[in-house]
């Protein structure tokens, strides 16, 4: 896997940690490895996002070719599903649950406070590239909410101070 780019650093922007640069050869390998599956589109898109942190626009024509579909069909699939990102995420991805069970224990105010303190909107990445905050509608952690997944690891019974401590640990710029 190609190392993360230097162009971001050259421009003085912190490089989003997890996202390697676009690599057509690697994308072709990923697509070829999955193309024989029944209904291969989603497995391919997940594998691409695992590798690049998002689904690069350049890969859509390649998938279309491999699956004998139109580019429009692939674009339609990518844009339908909430998971697939069109840009690299921050170094850490926090998926915060917004569904009813978490609402019943304060998730609405928790999320509002977090977004305000990080000065981002849902799906946005902080200016320093440290955090991407994404909404989730249920993580199956409904008896121990408010819940979240931090880089895939589950968190329970969150509150403002727990989240603030987590943010401090990563050196995020947090407004009071």
């Amino acid at each position, binding site marked *: 896997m190609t190392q993360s780019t230097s162009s971001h650093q050259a421009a003085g922007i912190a490089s989003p940690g997890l996202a390697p640069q676009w690599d057509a050869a690697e994308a072709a390998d990923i697509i070829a490895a999955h193309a024989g599956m*029944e*209904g*291969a*589109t*989603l*497995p391919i*898109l*997940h594998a691409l996002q695992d590798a690049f942190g998002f689904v690069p626009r350049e890969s859509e024509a390649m998938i279309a070719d491999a*699956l004998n579909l139109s580019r429009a*069909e692939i674009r*339609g*699939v990518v844009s*339908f*599903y*909430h*998971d*697939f990102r069109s840009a690299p995420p921050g170094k850490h991805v926090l*998926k915060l649950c917004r*569904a*009813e*069970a*978490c*609402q*019943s*224990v304060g998730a*609405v105010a928790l999320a509002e406070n977090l977004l305000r303190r990080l000065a981002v909107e849902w799906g946005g990445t902080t200016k320093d590239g440290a955090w991407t905050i994404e909404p*989730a*509608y*249920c*993580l*199956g*952690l*409904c*008896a*121990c*909410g408010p*819940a979240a*997944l931090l880089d*895939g*690891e*589950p*968190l*329970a*019974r969150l509150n403002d101070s727990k989240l603030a401590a987590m943010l401090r640990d990563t050196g995020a710029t947090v407004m009071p």
Partner: protein
Amino acid sequence: MTRIYLPQDAASLALGADRVLRALQAEAARRNLALDIVRTGSRGAIWLEPLLEVETAEGRIAYGPVSPNDIPGLLDASLLSGSAHALRIGRPEDHPWFANQQRLTFVRCGVVDPLSVEDYRAHGGFAGLERALTMSAEAVVDEVKTSGLRGRGGAGFPTGIKWNTVRMTPADRKYIVCNADEGDSGTFADRMLMEGDPLTLVEGMTIAAIGVGATKGYIYTRSEYPHAVRTMNGAIAAARLAGWLGDNIKGSGRSFDIEVRVGAGAYICGEETSLLDSLEGKRGQVRAKPPLPAIQGLFGRPTVMNNVLSLAAVPWILAHGGAAYAAFGMGRSRGTLAVQLAGNVARGGLIELAFGGTLRDLIENWGGGTASGRPFRAVQVGGPLGAYFPERLLDTPMDYEAFARAGGLLGHGGVVVFDDTVDLAAQARFAFAFCAIESCGKCTPCRIGAVRGVEVIDRLVAGIETVKNFEVLEDLCELMTDASLCAMGGLTPIPVTSALTHFPDDFDHKLRRSAPHVAQAAE
């Protein structure tokens, strides 16, 4: 060597099970204690997680909820011999929270090593499949019909009848698709089973395959469930290795294999036809029915589409007989329901009970009231498309028909408790907003109606032309109910109208100004 059991269910991990593990390993090394640590699923008492168990001469002795800081004290108190401690629960099977359940589907969950075929066998696993392998396809389907099992995903359609349609439809290839796209808020039973006893699902799907003549199975689950995906894949590999899956299963001449597929954050893909399109690699849009998936399902082939819990009930039914399963329950709701008690509740978790218990018993006796200690105000049963019930409906029994009569639905068995700080107008607004985000966009009542619904509720609570806007809301709900293509648009009016019926004050802009929950929400 002392054996310790520690869950690695996602909820247990979220509550610190891995930190407990590290503390235990470090402290054991310091004291020169040899431990054999088995990672299990959860028994479902999320309020006791992380629940640590020690194998002793008297059986497994549980302690919980354990934090890493408790470990030195527990070891000082001779944890390893199961001795007294403030966190000691005793034998889980003697504890009333577990002892009073009727565990059929979840009997092994939290008990066994989820990836061990040997452990699964030792706890009665594969007995149902062994029997099915000696039976005709018709006899397998008949056994499921006798059980009275109805689809646990929410629609409650008789499973045996669905299977029989697939069995009777000739085709070159048939599929078993397990709907593990458990998107309803307040539900986590599918996740728990896949993490705690995935071989039960493997066995149930394989029995279904024998019953209908299918050769390939898919489990369509969620990207929000990374732990379930890993454990499920591990269990499938273990079953294959042991000859319970793949070609010529246990020398029977039957072949069946399973693959896990992961969705991509679309709630609508829990709807069966939308799930099929997603599995085929398309946008997850709803299909018009007919044709039924049982006749033209995945890739146009006859397909059994069942929820995790429907399929996971099948091994017990085949092992013990359909009549034994039907002996549980009430009315036309036979067997057990995995109730998931969630939200603002003191003792939340998974409670498997025969149909017929009341919401009041669940919330007050099992749940111990609200977690916040504030008065109860509302409960939403059946996920985001389920009704909000007030205190006076708490005596409604957990039964498909009784819930329908009360204007609600049981759905997948999720019960979300709210205290008196809840604003039901905000919840009704959320129901529309969620529908607007998650609508597949194929039909107009759902796609446009949800957006209009948010706007109407905003006008109502702002006191703008309230008489007219109540009429618009009523009209909109009627239209969405009658004209939507699937349950997403068709049932979104249920949380809205139930909130409006049972909590009208929350929608009255004059009363809202002095209401405590609104004042709180504005803080």
